[in-house]
């Protein structure tokens, strides 16, 4: 078993639009956070789309960091990718699953981030937080990302 953080919010868009915005436009709505920094100096996130694709971060100098690889690419309902921050141990890959479900005229966007408790004690990625606090902050982080996505799709 691994830890799970699950959050969901509704956005005012179809699943198709929400999926497209999540993947094609992530660089437009993604908000870097000092608590969960993927790289020491934030760059721009983008997906290389498709089942063999990746989630990458391109830094100001052009250097590319691979956050994760696509594990499931099923538009418009589901997307799974691995998640590794630069401050993780090299062999640690956590997993993020995003689902898009139509609810009336809205879409429920849910995110489940699995395995974050495997970040080892003492890692800078933990900020010295005990598990419960770390996972609560991670939940808030993902909520704020979905909220930002929601702002993007309703413009």
């Amino acid at each position, binding site marked *: 078993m691994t*830890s799970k953080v699950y*959050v969901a*919010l509704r956005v005012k868009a179809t699943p198709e639009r929400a999926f497209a915005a999540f993947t094609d436009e992530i660089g437009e709505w993604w908000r870097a956070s000092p608590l969960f920094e993927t790289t020491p100096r934030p760059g721009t996130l983008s997906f290389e789309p498709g089942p063999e694709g990746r989630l990458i971060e391109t830094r100001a100098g052009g250097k590319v960091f691979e956050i994760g690889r696509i594990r499931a690419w099923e538009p418009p309902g589901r997307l799974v990718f691995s998640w590794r921050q630069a401050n993780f141990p090299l062999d640690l890959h956590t997993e993020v699953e995003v689902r898009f479900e139509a609810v009336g005229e809205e879409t429920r966007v849910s995110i489940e981030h699995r395995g974050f*408790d495997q970040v080892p004690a003492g890692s800078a990625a933990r900020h010295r937080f005990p*598990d*419960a606090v770390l996972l*609560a902050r991670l939940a808030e982080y993902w*909520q704020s990302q979905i909220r930002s996505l929601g702002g993007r799709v309703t413009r």
Partner: protein
Amino acid sequence: MADWRGALMSAVVYRDPKAALKFLEAAFGFELFMLIEDGEGNLVHSEMRFGNAAIMVGYEWSDDYRSPASIGGKVTQSVAIGIDTDIRAHCERARAAGMEILAEPELQFYGDSTYRCRDPEGHIWTVSQAVQAVSREEAEAATGLKITGWV
């Protein structure tokens, strides 16, 4: 933080909170919007939304917090749910999910139709739908109660 949070929020305690999340979704249409589980799959924290309100579904995290199922079925607090949809359909959905209906939907003197039910761990929930406009004078005349704070 969530995108909003009510000023009042109830934490409802269960022995098996993960089962409660599923049950409350089936019975009431509550929507899970946050769940945190530790490495053993135990629920650490969860929140469910309904309309413009939310509850936390929690576990018996200290000796002071108990599910009714652990203390002889008694409750000391109860959550009241206000709906703007048909209360009979709401009640039938709850019953089908396994709620024990303690009081069937019935019109109350204040103009709401309400029903009351008990979930598998013993929490009692009251559900109401406003169906009639009733003035304070009418309500006082009907019951003999003195009512303050009813505009």
